């Protein structure tokens, strides 16, 4: 390695050690958020996120699921649209919370609405189940990602599956699906997930009261700590009412109980 006292590089024409490799043909490839797709006519399409929704949090309890998200859609660091419902009732069995690029969320909601209308046109009392929708979304999102044209979304899908079992899953822009008793997107993954996991009783599911209290606490933490969260949020509830029907609604908007009185005690401001 040392020739004539001069340090020789380990290799030529390659990435320097420790650097993310820039594959040829892609400008600014190191940052996943900026992905430019080139086609033959030399025009580039940017698939960067523009108007974004922040965190979504889903918690499964013994009778169903709760999915909560704030009502803010940001334009970069600007809090642009402050009263947007990011939780959607899909049908009597499914609710969905959308995070990530909001235009892509609206686009996928249109496809999902078309599916639900198709179901209604069959008029055979067969309504889609959350697991089926989550699987379908995984396939669609994975396909889009494989064609290097992703939908920049991170969604939480929950509801009541067959045999009145609650179901909760998270599907992201790469088509990665994950099902658990608590799932979240965005900053909630770092702030809310550990909080909920700590409170989970080892031998049983949450009750509705416990889950609601956890939602309230997590929304408060997220408002204080995530700069792209606002204090107003909506909660989707999907729970078993009796053996044949569910209660499936989006409730809200609720307000985080903001406590700023401690600010007086902070020195230096």
């Amino acid at each position, binding site marked *: 390695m040392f020739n004539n006292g001069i340090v020789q590089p380990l290799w030529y024409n390659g990435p320097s050690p420790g650097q993310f490799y820039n594959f040829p043909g892609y400008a600014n490839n190191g940052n996943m958020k900026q992905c430019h797709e080139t086609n033959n006519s030399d025009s580039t399409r940017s698939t960067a996120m523009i108007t974004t929704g922040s965190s979504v949090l889903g918690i499964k309890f013994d009778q169903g699921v709760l999915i909560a998200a704030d009502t803010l859609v940001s334009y970069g660091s600007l809090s642009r649209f402050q009263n947007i419902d990011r939780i959607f009732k899909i049908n009597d069995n499914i609710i969905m919370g959308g995070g990530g690029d909001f235009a892509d969320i609206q686009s996928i909601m249109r496809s999902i609405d078309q599916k639900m209308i198709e179901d209604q046109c*069959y008029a*055979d*009392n*067969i309504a889609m*189940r959350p*697991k*089926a929708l989550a*699987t*379908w979304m995984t*396939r669609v999102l994975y396909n889009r990602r494989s064609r290097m044209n992703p939908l920049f979304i991170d969604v939480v899908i929950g509801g009541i599956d*067959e045999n009145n079992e609650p179901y909760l899953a998270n599907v992201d822009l790469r088509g990665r699906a994950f099902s658990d008793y608590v799932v979240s997107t965005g900053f909630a993954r770092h702030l809310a997930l550990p909080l909920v996991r700590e409170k989970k009783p080892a031998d049983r599911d949450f009750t509705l009261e416990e889950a609601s209290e956890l939602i309230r606490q997590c929304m408060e933490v997220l408002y204080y700590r995530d700069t792209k969260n606002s204090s107003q949020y909506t909660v989707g509830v999907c729970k078993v009412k009796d053996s044949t029907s569910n209660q499936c609604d989006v409730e809200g908007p609720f307000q985080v109980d903001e406590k700023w009185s401690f600010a007086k005690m902070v020195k230096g401001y």
Partner: protein
Amino acid sequence: MFRNQYDSDVTIWSPQGRLHQVEYAMEAVKLGTATVGLKSADYAVLVALCKPPSELSTSQRKIFSIDDHLGISIAGITADARVLSRYLRSECLSYKHAYAASYPVSRLMTNLGNKMQATTQRYDRRPYGVGMLVAGYDDKGPHIYQVMPSANSFSCKAMSIGSRSQSARTYLERHLASFKQCSKDEILCHGIQAIRGSLPSEEAAKKEESLAQLNICVAIVGKNQPFKILTEEENTKYLNMADELAGSVIHLKSDDDDDQPPQGGDEPAEPGPSDPLVDVPMDLP
């Protein structure tokens, strides 16, 4: 139904408002051997007569499994049945891949009906010459569907199609009220009993001594029961069970035979009326 000037093409209506080609296609179903489908509260069963076309060959496949929750039994042109079963399998698999769930049976029948209808409305296609009984189980319970070349599909409590299926239908109608409460064994026995009436008469005479040699194919699907075609041993077991359950019927049959003049030699002298033979491979005779 006889030849007329409106039956040369499937796209020609007759003045009476009929599509003769489609009706002729339905006749193809009546040429196949009989098959029976029936269901209880938890199970759907298919029974088919699998007679080999000659002593030298094995019998044609009558029952096709489509998916874990669905299977079909056919009567008519076997080649057409193969194409349709390939389509149904492909649809079920795509659905499973996209939705991680089994294709609801009623929706699959609508889908199949739409595919088959296209062939009754184009001058360059012909209707599929196969009728099928579909046995399926989904979270709405067990289903039996009858699908005909006219692209109609009917949901049935029990049904039989193919040649000499009228006696099977009579049996099913007579016992219809009891099917819902039947256990798995009982419903299988009912299916076997129903199809016995569809044997050609000389077969019935020969076989009444040992029902266990009846050439049938049996399949079942239902609650905690993926679609399964029964093995030879299971066939024999249920044939014997059906035998015991219907002991009195066998005695009646042997009374009839006593009235016939004694036959010399191995073969009966009068073969009796037989089914028309066709050039196209079907699940005959």
